[in-house]
């Protein structure tokens, strides 16, 4: 059985991983290579690395930095930001990327989707769409100009699918960094329209939000950015909580199935006797 995926979005601005709030405010987090290595070790199912400064500055993707960042990433990696031509995608594939995501290109030069899908296969092309809620309903948002486009995300995604996109990443600008949970209505509006897998993003606060999105929408993958950066083992603890409700992949050595969580789904401290006993447990590093 195919499992739903838990995905991390690593947002990079000017070479540094950042926490993004409403696409307006950015707080520094650290180096991309370290974020990728840790997410990998904590058992993430997939990573999306988005450079939000490349398109704004009209710059090419920073291939050298990407090559360094991907060395210890053994999970599927989608890279986006500044991709405007086929040569960029070719080079990405030589930098440790497995898929690429198109956001600006999907708005300005949708032909690139078709061209890229023809060469790299549709499974390699993710179209990433930012959406805002307006009084006319949901609309596509162009983060470079800061303007909305008079098309609904559902129609936009359908067109992208027809052009050859193999996956859709739908991101809610309003929920970005808000900790208000996923916009289920937005996600369903897109899932109802397209046949390709949908990845949803924007607003996750804790494992419960993932469970809501997994059980109340048809999204194939649930993505969060900020949420994963700030606690140790954030990925496996989240998965341990999700597993109580629905099926995801959890194969890391630390599976947290014996642990208890508080109402915010944060890990609770074990009692002192257990902790004392744990002092004498030696965990051998698995040798592959």
């Amino acid at each position, binding site marked *: 059985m195919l*499992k739903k995926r838990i995905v991390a979005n690593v947002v990079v601005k000017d070479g540094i991983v950042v926490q993004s709030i409403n696409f307006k405010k950015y707080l520094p987090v650290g180096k991309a290579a370290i974020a990728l290595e840790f997410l990998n070790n904590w058992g993430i199912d997939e990573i999306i690395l988005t450079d939000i400064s490349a398109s704004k500055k009209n710059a090419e993707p920073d291939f050298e930095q990407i090559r360094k960042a991907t060395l210890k990433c053994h999970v599927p990696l989608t890279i986006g930001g500044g991709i405007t031509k086929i040569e960029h995608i070719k080079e990405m594939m030589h930098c440790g990327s497995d898929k690429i995501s198109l956001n600006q290109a999907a708005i300005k030069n949708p032909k690139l989707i078709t061209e890229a899908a023809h060469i790299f296969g549709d499974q390699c092309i993710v179209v990433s769409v930012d959406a805002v809620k307006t009084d006319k309903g949901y609309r596509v948002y162009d983060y470079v100009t800061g303007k909305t486009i008079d098309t609904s995300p559902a129609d936009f995604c359908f067109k992208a699918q027809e052009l050859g996109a193999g996956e859709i990443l739908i991101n809610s600008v309003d929920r970005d960094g808000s900790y208000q949970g996923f916009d289920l209505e937005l996600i369903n509006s897109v899932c109802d329209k397209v046949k390709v897998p949908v990845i949803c993003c924007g607003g996750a606060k804790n494992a419960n939000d993932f469970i809501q999105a997994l059980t109340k929408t048809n999204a194939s993958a649930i993505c969060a950015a900020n949420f994963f950066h700030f606690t140790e083992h954030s990925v496996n603890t989240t998965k341990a909580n999700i597993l109580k409700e629905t099926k995801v*992949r959890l194969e890391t050595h630390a599976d947290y199935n014996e642990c208890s969580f508080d109402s915010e789904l944060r890990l609770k401290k074990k009692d002192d006797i257990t902790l004392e006993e744990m002092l004498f447990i030696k965990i051998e590093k698995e040798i592959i």
Partner: protein
Amino acid sequence: MNKQNIVIIDYGVGNTHSVSNAISYLGYKKLKISDSEEQIKKADALILPGVGAYEEAIKNLRVRNLEDLLNEEVLVKKKPILGICVGMQMLSEGSEENGWHKGLNWMKGKVKKLELPEKFAIPHVGWNNISIGNKEPMFNRIENDSNFYFDHSYYFDCADDIMAAWCDYGKKVTAAVQKDNIFGVQFHPEKSQTNGLKFFRGFLNSI
């Protein structure tokens, strides 16, 4: 150990760097990403990675004059080769992706579009557990039902005798094939975390 010459065949569209990251993580030092005749002839094992459309992949392989060379190395000299994703699909007679395209024709069977019941999205993307039919040598370190990462819209429709593993996605989907020194996997071991690394270790130890 770790002394084999391994060549990841670079034909323009594969995710070569991802594969190289995974194998060098295991400590294999004599690892090259190359399309040169000299390197391929020197190799103890070949890896044909894949991310790409079939037509483009096989066309690139032919443009780089690799088909005759690989026929010689694999069919005559019996060098072990592992195809990944579209690299595995190219081992077949051919594919119907964007019109009919002839493959390397090393294994019986054709690559066909996944035709699935309504609720199954295509491409088949994500982690799926595999059923192992033939443990040796590819899966000798892998438990049955382990999860691997898949990402494809077409599948290798092959006979049961060469199917080494399969998964369930609305139908029985070929996950791995093997015949003599020729091996292929539909999933991406380079992107399947610990299971993927164990897979490479098992495969490379066997050669």
